[in-house]
């Protein structure tokens, strides 16, 4: 080592022997990795994504179509599967709009006003992300189940939530709670409140500002938040599995139906139903690309 120079960042840059400052060759070449390293890193990336993403996705469709297209269609048209699809749609139709309204309200609250406890509120909104899906289901069983805190009261009034459809909707709403708020909040914060405040001085009401200025500004992020929320609502397994009770044709959602078919060694049907959920996931990723393209356009 010929010597060291203290750099602005405080760390020292070592100058190898035979080189003096300014003699390192072209800067661009110095920024590029050697071809061997490039190909190694690209190879590792492709292998990793191939193994963990491309292969599993391919396996779903190959297994689903193993016995031909008619077996695939038969598996999906089965009455229990159709009932599962209906229940999944019902769950999403209730929980997604609830979380949409909440997400917009919470993002508005956090981005438009100054108040104490804001960062604590953001942490609480994120909480369902950090709780295991199994615990997300368990809390509702402990609160509303037959032996739960409110169980005896619900029993007395003949209200059934756990091992019934309302429990599935509640658990799904809990799990998908942060999605819309999480997508919309950073965008609202980034875009600032200048236009809203101008509209206010021009005499616009709060609702006019929300619907004619703020929501159009954040529409692509909002759309993506709804798509993500919907994907999770339709695909949730752990939390729903704990509260559902697995009553066939009544409290089975699509992911639970996949599990039942799989455990019965009905592989073609299990993968056929799984392929519907895979298409939903691929559609979600496509929606993300569309939203990103629009956001970059401004």
């Amino acid at each position: 080592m010929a010597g060291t120079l203290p750099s602005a960042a405080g760390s020292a840059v070592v100058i190898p022997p035979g080189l003096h400052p300014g003699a390192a060759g072209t800067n661009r070449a110095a920024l590029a990795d050697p071809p061997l390293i490039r190909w190694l890193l690209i190879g590792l990336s492709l292998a990793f994504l191939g193994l963990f993403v491309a292969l599993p996705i391919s396996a779903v469709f190959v297994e689903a179509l193993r016995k031909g297209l008619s077996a695939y269609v038969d598996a999906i048209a089965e009455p229990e599967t159709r009932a599962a699809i209906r229940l999944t749609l019902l769950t999403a139709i209730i929980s997604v709009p609830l979380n949409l309204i909440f997400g917009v309200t919470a993002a508005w609250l956090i981005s438009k006003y100054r108040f104490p406890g804001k960062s604590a509120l953001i942490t609480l909104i994120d909480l369902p992300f950090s709780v295991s899906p199994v615990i997300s289901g368990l809390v509702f069983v402990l609160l509303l189940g037959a032996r739960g805190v409110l169980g005896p009261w619900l029993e007395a009034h003949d209200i059934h939530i756990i091992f019934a459809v309302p429990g599935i909707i509640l658990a799904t709403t809990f799990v998908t709670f942060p999605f819309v708020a999480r997508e919309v909040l950073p965008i609202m914060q980034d875009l600032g409140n200048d236009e809203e405040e101008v509209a206010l001085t021009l005499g616009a009401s709060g609702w006019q500002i929300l619907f004619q200025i703020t929501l159009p500004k954040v529409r692509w992020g909002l759309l993506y938040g709804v798509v993500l929320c919907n994907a999770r609502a339709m695909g949730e397994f752990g939390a729903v599995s704990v509260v559902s009770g697995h009553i066939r044709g009544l409290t089975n959602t699509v992911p639970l139906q996949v599990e039942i078919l799989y455990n019965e060694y009905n592989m073609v049907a299990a993968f056929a139903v799984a392929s519907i959920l895979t298409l939903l996931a691929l559609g979600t990723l496509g929606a993300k690309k569309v939203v990103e393209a629009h956001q970059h356009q401004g």
Partner: protein
Amino acid sequence: MGAEVAAPSSALRARVRRKSNRGPLPGFGLSLGVTLTYLGLIVLIPLAGLAVKTASLTGDQLWTAISSPRALAAYRISFLGALSAAVVNGLFGLVLAWVLVRYRLPGKGLLDAMVDLPFALPTAVAGIALTALFTESGWLGQFLEPHGIKVAFAPPGIVIAMIFVGLPFVVRTVQPVLMDIDPTMEEVAATLGASRAYTLRRVILPSVMPALLTGFALAFARALGEYGSIVFISGNMPMKTEIVPLLIVTKLEQYDYPGATAIALVMLMASFALLFIINSLQGWMARRGGHR
């Protein structure tokens, strides 16, 4: 007389001042009310239910459930599995983020989209798909099993599923930081004669370190709580391949509510500790970003 006039006007001034401190837009009360009510009903009251149930347990019940050999084995399996998966995701996530940010590749958009798949794919689907790949007759298992490498229905299967669910986190936290790094810093280092390896170690790595650790912690937390994809591939043998979330479900199915509650409490504490660590790391990341 003068005092009577002054009193309301000072109250009014205080109200206006308070309002302008919050910001000029209307709707504070309504949005605060809706947010807190909904947060309370959907998240806080259910979580409080867990606390109430825990309070009704005796210390003895709690300790027996938490410290049973089966529970201890499950903690070990979950912790070691999540740790291994997070290490793999840390290494490959860094490589992937580097390739996606720095290299020109045909089809890079597709690679970038593939990274998000584990976020979007339902865990049950991931579970049966990975199991199909790694069973002894599966696409990959048929080459591994003859060499004595058992993945499905064994601990490696748990790690595979955990790697899958945690895959996007490191890439998505490191990628924006790499994009923000000013290439002139590397050019300056190179001009001053620093080797490429030295520049990577002393310029790039310190910049991405907070993001890398945040991604690592997020991937670890996600793997620790994961249930759906693991139950298909792990084989679910008590003491051998039983993860903590599965043990909770098993206890619930046996109507052992105290046991399920006690173990859930341990998991919840671990999650909150991780949440605290992740928040601190993100604070560190934000401060670093501010200095640049």
